[in-house]
């Protein structure tokens, strides 16, 4: 039998099967209330997706946890519109404090590119992959708005 967890429709109900566990039945689902049943024990949970769809929030008896959706790219804020090309944009308004790289420069995954100040915090923008910096749209001291593309990268091998 498959070792991966699965959720499937069976006999008019939704069943959740985990490896080495008796299956759970979804007794009811009326967003945000989920009730699971197994062997006449029921437990209810409150669930909701995150705004960007990349994770789910699951709560039981007041304990709430966020869980990443597996297999989805964790690099939200990175638009991979063209193969290998990435636009790194600012999620909130701020000011460019430092530009640490130059156009044409090769950078490594994790390397800091730009430091932005927003809401009294300093945030460093890092290269998601080994890449070449193709364009830098702002200079030190510039103000950025939410959604502005700051750096464009072309992934290298």
């Amino acid at each position, binding site marked *: 039998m498959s070792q991966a*967890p699965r959720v499937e429709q069976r006999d008019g109900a939704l069943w959740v099967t985990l490896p080495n566990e008796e299956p759970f039945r979804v007794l009811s*689902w009326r967003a945000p209330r*989920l009730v*699971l049943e197994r062997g006449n024990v029921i437990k209810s949970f409150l669930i909701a997706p995150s705004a960007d769809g990349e994770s789910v929030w*699951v*709560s039981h008896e007041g304990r709430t946890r966020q869980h990443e959706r597996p297999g989805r790219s964790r690099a939200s*804020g990175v638009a991979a519109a063209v193969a290998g090309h990435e636009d790194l944009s600012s*999620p909130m308004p701020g000011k460019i404090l430092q530009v640490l790289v130059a156009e044409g420069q090769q950078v490594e995954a994790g390397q800091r590119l730009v430091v932005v100040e927003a809401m009294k915090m*300093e945030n460093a923008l890092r290269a998601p992959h080994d890449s070449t910096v193709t364009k830098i749209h702002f200079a030190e001291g510039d103000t950025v708005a*939410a959604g502005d593309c700051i750096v464009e990268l072309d992934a290298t091998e």
Partner: protein
Amino acid sequence: MTQLSRVLVANRGEIALRVIRGVQALGLEAVAVYSEVDAGSLAVQAADHAVPIGAPPPGESYLDIEKVIAAARATGADGIHPGYGFLSENADFAQAVAEAGITFLGPTPESIRLMGDKTQAGDQARASGVPTVPAFTPSPEATVAEISAAAEKLGTPLMIKAAAGGGGKGMRIARDLAEVPEMVEAAQREAQTAFGDARVFLERYIERARHVEIQVVGDGKGGALTLGARDCSLQRRHQKLIEESPVPAVPAAVIQDMETAASNLVQQTQYRGAGTVEFILETRDGDSGHAFFFLEMNTRLQVEHPVTELVQGVDLVALQVAIARGESWDPDLEQRSPSGHAIEVRVYAENPGVGFLPSIGTLTEVVWPQGPGIRVDAGVASGDEVTLYYDPLLAKIISYGVDRDQAIARMRRALAETFIAGVETSLEFCREILDSTAFRSSQMYTTLIEDELSDWAPREDTDAWQSAAIEAALHLTAGGPVGGGPPKLPTAWESLRDWRHDS
């Protein structure tokens, strides 16, 4: 009597909504003001009129005195309620409102100025017979004998602090009078090096302090009403987390003395409106030694006012309206004793597992608790965006019971029913505090959280049920929310450790 028919609420979030509801319940109209990100807020939806007042940063909207007064003029508001925070303790604002011919639902500019100045407030407190924390500033030429004599008068333990700075530099605690002269010298040297200013002062160090505050109302003519006490000892970096009323495990006579002191202060300053006199209460071993000292007076409605409302059976906003109209309170209130017990838990959009850093995002789902003895003052609902522009207080959950045990049990149930999806919150952390022995046995004190819970982290245990729920959740919400919001901080971003966090 002063006419009051339309009140502008110069605030946002949960307190704006609470005040709007309060004035509407009295048959008055409410005017909301909102920054660009608050246009869809609960407070705006509840108001009768709403005026946009600018960009999200408070300095461009909620703190802009001219814009607020212009909004009042544009809507014909004859009263302004400042809420708490923002302009509520800004004497210039109170002045500008009065000069605009609008009734300010708060104290006079003079009272705000007086209590806003720590030195003046302390002087006034002492003049009204209210004790302040014993302190002494030695002159630079003070001899060892003079310092020792002063220290003996203050009593131990004693804190020796640099006058110029903070951050613990130049700060020492002397538990024995014999240690004092040497510690003063060392502190002076350290202060000189750190701040270029060798001045230090001595202050009685209150150990295991409880923060106890008295709700007061003044009629502006020397009349004073005290409405019981609240315990707000559970704080993190001076930010209150859990409050309750009445104050547990303190003799009634001590509370009575505090109420008398607070009442004297109100009478002698002819204070007008609602306010809170805050004290620090010393608890030594057992229940002997309940000395209390004046901390400060807040000349506004406080965040935690609901616990007073529930045990005293009053509506403080209604009282503020009455005072603003030139009326006085129901004389019956002067005789009333508290009934039952109320506890408030503040819901902050903060991540306790990561140093209480503010948490931002879109609230894709919000479920508040309901049921007997539960009151929720919430500023947010499903779909709202939590940003970094404002204080991260999302809501207050308040429980009421016939006694403290019932209030605690009801609060536990309420917290178990609460669900906020989209940001991390302080809820689970507060639940653990409520379950702690210290809280159950009323052994709270102001540094308890820092002393014993500073490395708290949410539990990692996941059982089969939880795993199954996660799988079901992933499957059932695969379509994502309708009309999502802007992405949370993407992983390409790394927040550097240089957080500057307003507390």
